Structure formats: C-alpha cells, structure tokens
C-alpha cells in the first residue's frame, strides 16, 4: 500500500471546507476525520520506520515545485499532532459551534504541514494557517483573559510571520530556490552576512511560535486564558511543530558552529527563565505555561548538540518531544479543575509529572539521559549543571502542584479519559523497544 503523506494535509483541509455544508453532524464528522488522519499518520510513521526518509512530490518536482520530506522526527511529530489531536478533541466535545471544529481541524492540518513539508515557503504558509487558527481557538473561550491572550498572541505572531517572510525573501534573493535541501546543498555559496541575517530573521520569526526566550511574552497569557482543551492543543501542536522547524533550520539549512552555539545558549536561557518563573507561580495554568517554556528550551538544547553529540541529540529530542507533548497536554487537561479525585486522573497526573521530571522508564527519562550523554560528549558541564538546577526547581513546583491537586472532587469523564490516554504515551514510548531504533534514525536523511 502506498502511503500518500499529502493526505495528512489534504483530508483535514477538505473536511474543514466541507463542514459548513453538514453543520448538524460536524462533531462526529470531525471525530471521524481526526481518527482517519491518526491512522494515516501511524501508517506514515511505519513507512518511515521501514524505508527511512520519504519524499512526496506535489505537482512538480523540486526545486521548481514543492515536495514533502518526512524524516523520523517529522513522522513522529505528525503522529503526535494527529493522534493527540484526536484524543484531545474529546475534551472539547462541549463546543457546539461547527466553526470551532473547522478551526480545530485547520490547526491540526497546519501543524502537520509545518513538520512534513520540505519547502521553506510552504512551511511559512502552514505557519500562517496554524497561527491564525490558534488565535481564534484561544479566543474561543470568549472570556476577557482569553481575548487578551489572543490579541497578544496575534500581535507577536504576525510580527513573527513578517520576520519569517523576510528571512525567506532574503534566502530566495540569494539562492533562487525555496527547497530546503536545495538551499542546504548550496548554502556555502551564499553571501556570509546575508546568510546570518536571514538566519536571524527566521529564528526570530519561528522562535515566537516556538516559545523561545525572550520571544515568548504571549505564552503565559494565552495558556491562562485559553480553555483547557485548547491549551493542551497548543502545547503539543503548534509549539512542537515550530521547534521542529527550528531544528530543520539549524541542522539542515544553516549547520555551523556559530548557529549551534547560539541555539544552545538561547535554549539554556529559555530553560532557566521558564523554570525559574514557574517556581513562584500560583496560578496552575500559568505555572504549566512557564514550565512549557522551560521544556521548549530543553528541546532546543537537545537540537543544538548536533556538532559532537549527534548520536545522542536526535534521540534526546525525540524522547523529549514525546514526553513534553504527552505530559504537558495531559497536565493542561488536569488544570481544568486541578482535582485528582479518580484513579484515572491520579494515574494521568502522576505519570505526566514523573515523565517531565525525568524518571525512568518514562520517555522523559530517556530524553534527559541522551541529552546528558550528548552534552557530556561535548563536555558542556556548565550546561549540564544548569539543567540539573532547573530540574530541581521543576521537581519542587510540580510536587507542590501534585499536592495541591489532591482532592475528592472528580473531573468529567471527557477530561479524565483523554488525560490518562495522553499520559500513557510517555509510558509507552519509554518502554517499547522499537521506539529506540526509530529515535536513533538520523534526522532529515543523513545529517
């Protein structure tokens, strides 16, 4: 069976266009489409697992046309975005408006597009779809805080988009090509200064979505304002896609000691800033938002270790992404009421927290373990100590959070079940043996 990866994008788009015609059954239609897409993403993952990187041409072969380029990490992210999207949708079942369902599908399609496309301008287009859908979804709670968050997100997001576009324009002016691999092959011919300027623009633009410090001013407000289901969607969808886009930028297009170094220190700053700011936070959602920032920093550190620790960098980011996506989305669902009454929510909450802190055999442990091995092979002891420091702070506030969430009150089943299932992913990815082979395959076809 031939797996057409383009269906991952085409099907949700088609159904988003279709929903206004079938308003009455939009909820069930959306669920079935999300399920279908999850199945596709699993097929794509297995395809990548068996054959290595997949390329799928659209309309014309590149560089004049566009293609999708799917490596192990993007297949994983496509899986996370689609499967988690389907599971998380259960928590938003109360939303009746068909427009909400359309926006949800579009956000999923956009995030998937970012990770599987092999064309830099196409990536920008999907960024736009994701961002615009996210603004609307954040504001969908219609409370004052939600609207405030959405507006901040929108202003910074459009600033970021402009910068991405500028970066792409600069690259195109020099390379006459938009295909990522085409650019990567000839990047050495580029004027040195323009290369760095365009890198700076792209990093800034994508960094806004990827919650890097100091571009992440919108993060706490948005996560605080958005409803739990949407906060969860944002934590595993757009932000993960954006950090992966940064990885492609860093590892494929602009591989150099300088960019790695800059990414490393931005990652460290993001990590420390997020964790320290979360430490004294009293609002659960804000705390989780700051903690997300910290985790994104950790993932960026993992990506920036590719110069020496390449053996460990990709598995580290692989496991960190899984761990953070599953654990944080689960915790955002928990933050709906912050009460762990039933056994299911207890299981979900504790597993998520343990995975984030990095306890074996959960995915978070393997992520941190490979990250440490990578950092040790580059002898970055200071970075390791800073990560330790942030880890201890993280343990402190998560323990506090866990204690606060003890209670007899139970959450609705529509929150409890997705939460438990989402947490299970960090357990499953830590234990399944074939995952390691998947994680250890090289990023982007042979870096």
């Amino acid at each position, binding site marked *: 069976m031939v797996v*057409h990866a383009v269906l991952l994008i*085409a099907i949700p788009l088609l159904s*988003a266009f*279709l929903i206004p015609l079938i308003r009455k059954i939009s909820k069930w239609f959306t669920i079935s489409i999300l399920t279908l897409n999850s199945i596709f993403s699993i097929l794509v993952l297995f395809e990548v697992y068996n054959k290595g990187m997949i390329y799928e041409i*659209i*309309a*014309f072969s590149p560089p004049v046309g566009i293609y999708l380029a799917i490596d192990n990490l993007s297949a994983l992210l496509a899986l996370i975005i689609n499967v988690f999207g389907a599971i998380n949708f259960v928590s938003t079942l109360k939303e009746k408006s068909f427009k909400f369902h359309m926006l949800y599908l579009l956000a999923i399609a956009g995030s998937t*597009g970012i990770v599987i496309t092999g064309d830099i301008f196409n990536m920008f287009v999907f960024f736009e779809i994701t961002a615009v859908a996210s603004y609307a979804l954040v504001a969908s709670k219609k409370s004052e805080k939600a609207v405030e968050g959405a507006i901040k997100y929108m202003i910074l997001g459009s600033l970021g988009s402009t910068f991405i576009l500028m970066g792409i324009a600069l690259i195109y002016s020099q390379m006459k090509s938009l295909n990522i691999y085409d650019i990567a092959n000839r990047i050495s011919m580029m004027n040195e200064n323009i290369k760095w300027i365009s890198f700076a623009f792209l990093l800034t633009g994508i960094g806004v979505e990827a919650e890097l410090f100091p571009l992440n001013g919108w993060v706490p407000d948005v996560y605080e304002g958005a409803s739990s289901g949407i906060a969860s969607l944002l934590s595993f969808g757009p932000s993960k896609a954006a950090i992966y886009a940064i990885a492609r930028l860093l590892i494929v297009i602009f591989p150099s000691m300088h960019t790695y170094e800059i990414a490393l220190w931005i990652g460290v700053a993001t990590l420390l800033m997020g964790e320290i700011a979360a430490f004294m936070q009293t609002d659960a959602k804000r705390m989780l938002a700051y903690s997300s920032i910290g985790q994104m920093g950790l993932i960026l550190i993992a990506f920036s270790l590719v110069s020496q620790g390449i053996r460990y960098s990709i598995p580290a980011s692989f496991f960190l992404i899984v761990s953070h996506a599953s654990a944080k989305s689960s915790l955002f669902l928990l933050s709906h009421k912050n009460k762990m009454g039933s056994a299911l929510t207890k299981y979900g909450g504790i597993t998520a927290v343990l995975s984030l802190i990095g306890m074996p055999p959960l995915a978070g442990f393997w992520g941190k373990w490979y990250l440490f091995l990578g950092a040790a092979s580059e002898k970055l002891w200071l970075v390791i100590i800073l990560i330790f420091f942030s880890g201890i702070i993280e343990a402190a506030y998560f323990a506090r959070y866990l204690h606060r969430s003890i209670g007899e009150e139970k959450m609705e089943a529509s929150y409890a079940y997705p939460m438990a299932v989402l947490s299970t992913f960090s357990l499953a990815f830590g234990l399944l043996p074939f995952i390691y082979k998947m994680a250890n395959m090289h990023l982007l076809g*042979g870096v």
Partner: protein
Amino acid sequence: MRKQASVVITVIFFLSLTFAFYQISSSYNYMENKYDYTNPINESSANESVPQHYIKDTKNETGAINVVTAIVVEYRGFDTLGEVTVLFTAATGVGFLLYNLYSRKKNKREANLILREGSKIVLPFALLTGAYIFIHGHLTPGGGFPGGSVIASGFLLMMLSYPKFFMNEKRLSVLESLAGITFVLIGLFGLIFATYFLQNYLNLGNVGYLISAGIIPLIYIAVGFKVGSELASVIQNLKEVQE
C-alpha cells in the same frame, strides 16, 4: 523610559535592516552553479536556476502564458491552497468570534444619492471585472486572489451605499465551502489520474486560448469564488456586529 528605549531600538532595527539590504544589493547576482543533490528525486532536475526555468519552460509545461499564474497555481499550487486556507481560517475565526454579537434591527443612516445611484452602475462592472480577472488568470495579469477581492469590493460598495443591504450568510458559506472543496478535489484527482497531488491531468490545449492550461483556470475560478465570498462575509460580519 520605555518610550526612549523603544525609539532607540526601532532606530537600530531600521539601521540594521538598511545594512542587510545594502549587503544584498551589493552582492546581487544570479548564481548559476550546478546542483548537487543527494536526495534521489532531484536527479532529473535541470542544470539551471529556478527563475530561469520558470521563464523558459512555463509555456511547455503548464500551457499558461502568464508565468506568475503558472507559478502560483501549478508549480507552487500547494502554497496557494495554503494561502486560500489562511484566508478561510481568518474568515472562519472572525465569524466564530463575532457569532453571538449580531444585530440587524438597528436603523441605519441612508447614504447619499450619488453614492447610491453610482454604485448601482458600478456594481455590475466591478463584478464583471473581478470575474474577468480570475477567469483570464492564465492569460493576463491577475488571478483568483485579485479577482475575488475585486468582487468583494463590489459588495463592499453595496454595503456602503445601502446600509440594509444584506447577503445571505449561509449561501455565502456554502459557496465558499464548495469552492474550497473543488480546489482540494482537483488536487486529489491529480493523485488519482496522474501521479502527484495537484498535478495537471487535463489537456494543455492551445496555448494562449481561453480554454487551455489544464487545471489552472479551474483552480483560479474556485479561488476567485472562494476569496470573493470570504472577504465579503468578513466585511459583512464586521459590519453587522453589535456596538
């Protein structure tokens, strides 16, 4: 303090932008070095740069005279699908957020006579121009986006001159949906009848004639309808919002 800081930073920002563009203009030359693809599907690619390919081979490959159209719809059709979706997302978002805030009962002031009568005359021409722009997208400058927005501005004119003018929203959104579905289906048919998504599977026809260039006109018509109805509905949504 904040104000001064922002002024200083803005100045530095623009200075550095100037520096960047100076750098570009000083090193502006077409790079025509040969490709060195490691990745297998690119082996057949030509030994020429992408812009040159566009200029030279567009007519043979797509049957469109207007290179821009060929690029937008054919070579980078996927981007266009994305752009259309961005607009669609924005329109949906606006509609979603303003959903409960409508009021249609308010008395509104009439516009003056010249505007009312003038718009009656202009409207058919505006719609015709818009339709022309997107139907002739593969032959003359223009295409779905400008055509659609011209049509939308025609409706804007109507809204300005007749405050009670009201388009049926349901029909607009059905139109919008159908146009979007058409676009994606054309792409999916490419997957079925040809090899790739959005690949041309129709006869290219006589280059330069109205019915030529394969799927390009079809897509552009869809895009035109879509953009027109979306923009119109966005404006209507904003207009109808309660104060």
